């Protein structure tokens, strides 16, 4: 994907999220000036960034939304509930087009959608006030305000900022831009900046080409400024700054630079990988210390101290890197209300969708992986949970259904609940449906408790939709949701009451999930072993293995280490070979070597806790899903070797 588009997708969605949360506030309080300002800025910036892409309708819709907000800012057209709903409709359209442009191009229906959204905005803009130009903060204003913040703070009245970009050839016409600037009334500050971003080098200076841009602040009103620059009207930009509302004061006088930095997640992951390697490498000190023991005990103690220090520092680094991977969950969540509104509209249902979340941060992987399952659950709630307006009225319920998504932190986990006040799920109906679809036998179904029966909806191939609607019933059911949640090492439960509604409760880890695994082969199968359990790996000649009792041992660095066959430990049979490949681990403080048939690749994988039949197998910490969909058992070496 082209870099510009990638950047736009990130920033554009951030801006949509910002505007959406502002509109949420405005829906409750349409007169909140600070929020109107914030929404205006977000919409204005978004309008500027959609221009780069073939998104004409988005530009028009945003322009109209910007006008409406501008009028509200100027007190020329207060917002009401209808206007805010119109703004939301505009933003929804744009959000949708951003999704479409990510897939290639905006849809053919864009013009219709734009027309509909525009129709919902209050009356078209009145003619702009002739005395006010460039109402939105232009790009150059930010750096200027940053540079001249002291002058702006010290001002007791509105100022006029100017940017004068003379024509490069103006010297030949006898113009002197500096003389024009000298005539500016009530000039407070002046800066002469290189037009190209940097001054030319001594050798490259063209003495008769104007390469400067003049920017500054004046206390004069805008009309007086226009008069000062009347000779060069097409070269001048003016903007009013009101110190009372200007947010130009640096957040921290100490560091007036932007403290945010966008970093490609892959780089952070590479850092984390490197740390994993470091931890394994540090393990080498243990062997070194043992060898030193034979020569000099103080030296060995010294090496162990160094090892402990490095391990501690690596641990701290690891925590820092994990913290870097934490991202706010808000952008993921903020995309949901629009989708919920679209789904409800498509199904002819009235739904009030409410999100309550604290400003949670979760590991990037969780944030990325959560959108799809939540979307599915919301779709399911609106499609199967919330009844039609008629049915709700007949049941004596409010016509508008309510779907609430609540996200909260619980220690190291996040808890997400999705409630709807719809028809609820009837266990009896689920049993019948599961039996008729061959998901479960009749007897088995009858034995299930009600909560267990409800869980049948997660079974593959289960779907209770009596008809295939445009929204659900696309052959992707709740089993996909459960799989997605489990991929994130989470759990999902549901509860409900017929007629009263349904609740889905998810629990997910909040922190990093992947474990570095070394894939090994033993007894014809492949297993994963967590790298941090491996002290070292090496190969020895099979002849070097000495039979000891029923097992074997070998001498490693002057120490006798018991050698166990991994295949045999796992209930298979050992394959003899000329070279023995050994994994050294520590069990109960002692080093133990496990013989394997081969070392394969190192992978990063999500290790899921063992479930069902696996939980009773000793020495298995869980399973990992491989990229190809296969499952790798992850072994707990110390437990196996104990």
């Amino acid at each position: 994907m082209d870099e510009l588009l990638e950047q736009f997708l990130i920033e554009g969605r951030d801006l949509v999220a910002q505007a959406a949360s502002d509109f949420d506030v405005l829906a409750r309080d349409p007169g909140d000036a600070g929020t109107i300002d914030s929404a205006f800025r977000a919409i204005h910036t978004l309008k500027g960034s959609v221009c780069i892409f073939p998104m004409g309708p988005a530009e028009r819709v945003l322009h109209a939304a910007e006008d409406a907000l501008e009028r509200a800012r100027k007190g020329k057209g207060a917002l009401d509930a209808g206007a805010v709903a119109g703004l939301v409709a505009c933003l929804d359209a744009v959000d949708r087009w951003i999704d479409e442009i990510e897939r290639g191009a905006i849809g053919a229906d864009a013009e219709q959608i734009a027309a509909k959204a525009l129709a919902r905005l209050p009356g078209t803009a009145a003619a702009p006030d002739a005395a006010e130009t460039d109402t939105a903060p232009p790009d150059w204003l930010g750096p200027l305000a940053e540079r001249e913040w002291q002058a702006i703070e010290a001002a007791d009245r509105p100022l006029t900022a100017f940017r004068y970009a003379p024509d490069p050839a103006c010297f030949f016409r006898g113009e002197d831009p500096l003389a024009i600037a000298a005539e500016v009334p009530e000039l407070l500050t002046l800066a002469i900046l290189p037009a190209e971003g940097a001054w030319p080098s001594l050798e490259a200076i063209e003495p008769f080409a104007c390469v400067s841009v003049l920017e500054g602040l004046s206390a004069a009103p805008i009309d007086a400024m226009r008069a000062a620059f009347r000779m060069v009207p097409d070269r001048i930009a003016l903007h009013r700054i009101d110190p009372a509302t200007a947010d130009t004061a640096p957040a921290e006088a100490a560091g007036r630079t932007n403290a945010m930095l966008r970093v490609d997640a892959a780089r952070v992951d590479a850092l984390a990988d490197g740390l994993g390697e470091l931890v394994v490498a540090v393990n080498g000190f243990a062997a070194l210390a043992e060898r030193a023991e034979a020569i000099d005990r103080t030296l060995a103690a010294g090496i162990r101290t160094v090892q402990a220090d490095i391990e501690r520092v690596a641990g701290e680094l690891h925590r820092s890197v994990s913290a870097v991977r934490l991202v706010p969950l808000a952008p993921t969540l903020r995309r949901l209300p629009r989708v919920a509104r679209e789904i409800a509209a498509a199904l002819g249902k009235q739904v009030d969708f409410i999100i309550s979340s604290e400003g949670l941060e979760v590991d990037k992987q969780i944030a990325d992986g959560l959108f799809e399952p939540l979307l599915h659950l919301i779709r399911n709630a609106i499609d199967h949970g919330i009844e039609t307006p008629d049915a709700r009225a007949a049941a004596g319920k409010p016509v508008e259904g309510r779907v609430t998504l609540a996200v909260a932190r619980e220690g190291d986990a996040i808890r997400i609940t999705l409630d709807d006040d719809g028809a609820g799920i009837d266990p009896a109906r689920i049993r019948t449906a599961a039996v008729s679809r061959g998901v479960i036998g009749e007897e088995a179904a009858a034995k299930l408790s009600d909560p267990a029966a409800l869980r049948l909806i997660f079974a593959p191939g289960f779907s209770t939709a009596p008809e295939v609607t445009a929204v659900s019933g696309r052959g992707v059911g709740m089993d996909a949701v459960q799989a997605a949640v489990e991929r994130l090492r989470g759990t999902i439960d549901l509860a409900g009451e017929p007629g009263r509604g349904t609740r889905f409760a998810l629990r997910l880890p909040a922190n990093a999930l992947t474990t570095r695994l070394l894939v090994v082969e033993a007894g014809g199968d492949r297993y994963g072993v967590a790298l941090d359990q491996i002290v070292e790996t090496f190969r020895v000649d099979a002849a070097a293995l000495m039979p000891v009792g029923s097992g074997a041992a070998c001498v490693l660095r002057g120490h006798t280490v018991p050698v166990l066959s991994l295949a045999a430990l796992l209930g298979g049979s050992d394959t003899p070979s000329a070279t023995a490949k050994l994994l050294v681990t520590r069990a109960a403080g002692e080093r133990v070597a496990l013989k394997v048939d081969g070392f394969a690749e190192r992978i990063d994988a999500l290790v899921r806790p063992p479930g069902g039949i696996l939980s009773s197998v000793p020495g298995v910490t869980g399973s990992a899903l491989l990229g190809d969909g296969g499952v790798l058992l992850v072994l707990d070496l110390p437990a196996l070797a104990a």
Partner: protein
Amino acid sequence: MSVRVEGEVILLVGRCQAEDAEALLVALQESAARIVDLAEVQRMHLAVAQVLLAVRPTVQGSPTNAFLARYFVNLLQ
């Protein structure tokens, strides 16, 4: 001619016009270590000003012109 070179000092005198930018530039290209004296400047064209801004020579003296003294000299710091 408002640009006078006296050894290691370049004196800008009176009203510096656009064409003086070239003389100043040549003088600085001969030796960028030269000091530019602004004490005698009455007016300065942007062409001259931008040479000073680009080359950033050491300057001495403050112009008699109030506008330059207040708004321009600080830009050379």
